[in-house]
């Protein structure tokens, strides 16, 4: 199979589909969209009716749990953080309107992405979502993304050098992860999949902790409660239910924390994700579903997962969904902030579809040249999240050369740190096999531990005898 033939097939497969049209809309190059008409017909009526339904459902469900368990705590939260709560309510109300704007009638392509920074680095406004950040804060987002990418690149290289058994790169998804991650408070709780290295960075999780699982020294390895960042979950979509249950607990506690669940476009096909949508809506749980649609679930394109844009699925469950430019860190921050604030104030769940692209392979074991074209990747490279923020920082005079040089220096240091850490990471003790299988212990584990220990000890005995 040649790359060309794969590319040709791949192009043919995607022509006239939601993914492609949205891509064009995102880049502002949506020329000649007439050909998309045949696909657009079903969308508008659906959206129009769901508008009322979703609002009603939210109002109906929100009353019950809020009145019971939260009461005073929640209203306190509201008043102490008056401004954000207010803007959140505004954002969410508009979010509903936004996804079903009058222009979304039959024949129109799906609504454009929420975008605050064009691929060319131009700052634009959006009627419903915005952020007001200082130069330092924008610089911080840039630094986060550069360091995250550097960490990721280092890990990929270390896998190639045999130091890691596998690595799942986030290359290209830095804006989605940093933007959403920086929208959270420390008391919020994150349920990641296995690619959220950037979100982990925002949660102050030591990056080298993320490597243990991929090196094979543990199956997770950190205390989720230290940084309110749950363990990586490999089974697709499972953690979305955990997030929902956790959020149900948050509501029961009367806390005003929000919970965010990360998952991919492939996971959106899993029953667990649909069940999480159901439970979160029914119990009005303060959970934000953050789907990073990176276009590919290993080799399966998004259109193999859904015949409607992923964010629109939320309507059927009774809560709002919105699609954001996942390569625009400012937009990801703004939309996620609105969604978590909405959750905090008892308005229930929200689905965010971050429309982005996995620039690398699914994992280091994957070969994307077998299923996607070079042209596709090249087109997405033009929308690189880091480059566009850099252009913005430069053009707007928000950062000087010294700043960029400083970040570059930090990035080098990060690389060195990761290399050193991985090479000095100790293998686990053999007897760790038996540790933590159970919290309260288990007779069989005790028996097998003792048997295995004595088996191992028998080698030590024979070794010492041979040495004699």
């Amino acid at each position: 199979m040649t790359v060309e033939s794969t590319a040709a097939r791949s192009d043919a497969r995607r022509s006239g589909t939601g993914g492609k049209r949205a891509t064009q809309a995102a880049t502002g190059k949506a020329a000649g969209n007439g050909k998309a008409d045949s696909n657009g017909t079903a969308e508008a009526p659906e959206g129009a009716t769901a508008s009322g339904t979703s609002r009603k459902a939210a109002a109906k469900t929100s009353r019950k749990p809020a009145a019971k368990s939260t009461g005073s705590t929640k209203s306190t939260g509201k008043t102490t953080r008056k401004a954000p709560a207010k803007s959140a309510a505004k954002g969410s109300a508009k979010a509903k309107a936004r996804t079903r704007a009058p222009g979304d009638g039959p024949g129109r392509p799906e609504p454009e992405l929420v975008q605050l920074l064009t691929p060319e680095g131009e700052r634009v406004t959006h009627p419903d979502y915005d952020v007001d950040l200082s130069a330092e804060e924008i610089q911080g987002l840039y630094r986060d993304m550069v360091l995250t990418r550097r960490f990721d690149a280092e890990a990929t290289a270390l896998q190639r050098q045999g130091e890691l058994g596998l690595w799942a790169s986030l290359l290209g998804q830095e804006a989605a992860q940093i933007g959403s991650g920086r929208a959270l408070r420390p008391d919020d709780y994150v349920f990641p999949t296995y690619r959220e290295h950037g979100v982990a960075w925002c949660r102050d999780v030591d990056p080298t902790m993320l490597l243990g699982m991929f090196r094979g020294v543990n199956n997770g390895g950190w205390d989720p409660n230290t940084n309110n960042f749950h363990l990586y979950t490999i089974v697709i979509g499972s953690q979305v239910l955990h997030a929902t249950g956790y959020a149900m607990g948050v509501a029961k506690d009367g806390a005003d924390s929000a919970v965010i669940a990360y998952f991919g476009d492939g996971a959106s096909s899993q029953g667990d994700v649909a069940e999480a949508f159901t439970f979160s809506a029914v119990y009005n749980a303060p959970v934000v579903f953050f789907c990073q649609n990176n276009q590919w679930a290993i080799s399966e394109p998004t259109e193999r997962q859904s015949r409607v844009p992923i964010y629109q699925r939320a309507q059927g469950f009774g809560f709002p969904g919105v699609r954001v430019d996942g390569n625009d860190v400012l937009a990801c921050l703004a939309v996620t902030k609105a969604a978590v604030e909405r959750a905090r104030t008892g308005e229930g769940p929200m689905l965010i579809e971050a429309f982005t692209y996995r620039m690398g392979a699914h994992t280091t074991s994957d070969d994307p040249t077998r299923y996607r074209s070079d042209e596709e990747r090249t087109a997405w490279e033009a929308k690189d999240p880091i480059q566009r923020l850099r252009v913005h920082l430069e053009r707007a005079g928000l950062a000087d050369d010294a700043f960029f040089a400083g970040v570059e220096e930090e990035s080098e240091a990060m690389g060195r740190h990761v290399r050193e850490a991985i090479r000095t990471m100790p293998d686990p003790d053999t007897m760790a096999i038996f540790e933590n299988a159970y919290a309260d212990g288990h007779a069989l584990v005790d028996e097998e531990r003792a048997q295995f220990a004595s088996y191992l000890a028998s080698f030590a005995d024979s070794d010492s005898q041979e040495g004699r």
Partner: protein
Amino acid sequence: MAATGTAPAAAQKLPVAKAINSSLRTALENDPKVLVMGEDVGKLGGVFRVTDGLQKDFGEDRVIDTPLAESGIVGTAIGLALRGYRPVVEIQFDGFVFPAYDQIVTQLAKMHARALGKIKLPVVIRIPYGGGIGAVEHHSESPEALFAHVAGLKCVSPSNASDAYWMMQQAIESDDPVIFFEPKRRYWDKGEVDPSAIPAPLHSAQVARPGSAVTVAAYGPMVKVCLEAAAAAAEEGNSLEVVDLRSMSPIDFDTVQRSVEKTGRLVLVHEAPVFLGTGAEIAARITERCFYHLEAPVLRVGGFHAPYPPARLEDEYLPNLDRVLDAVDRALAY
């Protein structure tokens, strides 16, 4: 709180279902973090009425009717446990647990180890299981071996009202996930429950009837059958010792071993298919531990390697007194 809805203060005779109800009630009263969740557990009180009256007394926030989604029930219970709650979830019937099997096996069982012990998952999954009630397909299965095989889970099954009461308390107090198999055809069997008694450890096996010639070990619904078999055997002059295993993970091999060292013979009885079942594991271990004490091979009585049959055949499928006594005779014939 309604007069009917208080946990028992003094010893009284209760059916198994009511004993579990009392136990849940006690747990809900004692620990505000305990939650009861499942399909129809609220207003209806569960299809077997095991949770009857709990929602009325503890409210919808503690006794939660859920959507009809088993993976969702277990998956959200995991999240609630991570938040500090102790959910007790009901899977309505044995054959309905499989949509949740992934969450139980890949998530619930392994999360404590994955976090190097930093987090605990005190989730109890109640599964009314086994046959004998004339039900339709998927309502009479015994999938316990599938769960006992998974490290990270504990599996128990009471056989009588007192154990049902105490073992439920202990399962809820455990920091490990416990699959609690309720023998549904024993729900209506009455037994004495004494809330002031000191219960045996959750995972200990108990000698339900002492004897000297053959050890018959069983758990859950089959214990009663074995006790009846022992009574019948006594009339024929054969002394059977009946061991109630109570726990399928871990299994209390020491108690079984002690009994077999005394009797020299072991017959294992369960409703689940014999092939790769709990009995197979016990037979292997006991053979290893008691090889020189055994006067006969360890024999097993159980279900066949076939789908659970339609209800009009279940009396033939389920081990009964005759099949147990037949195995006892075979063991004694060596």
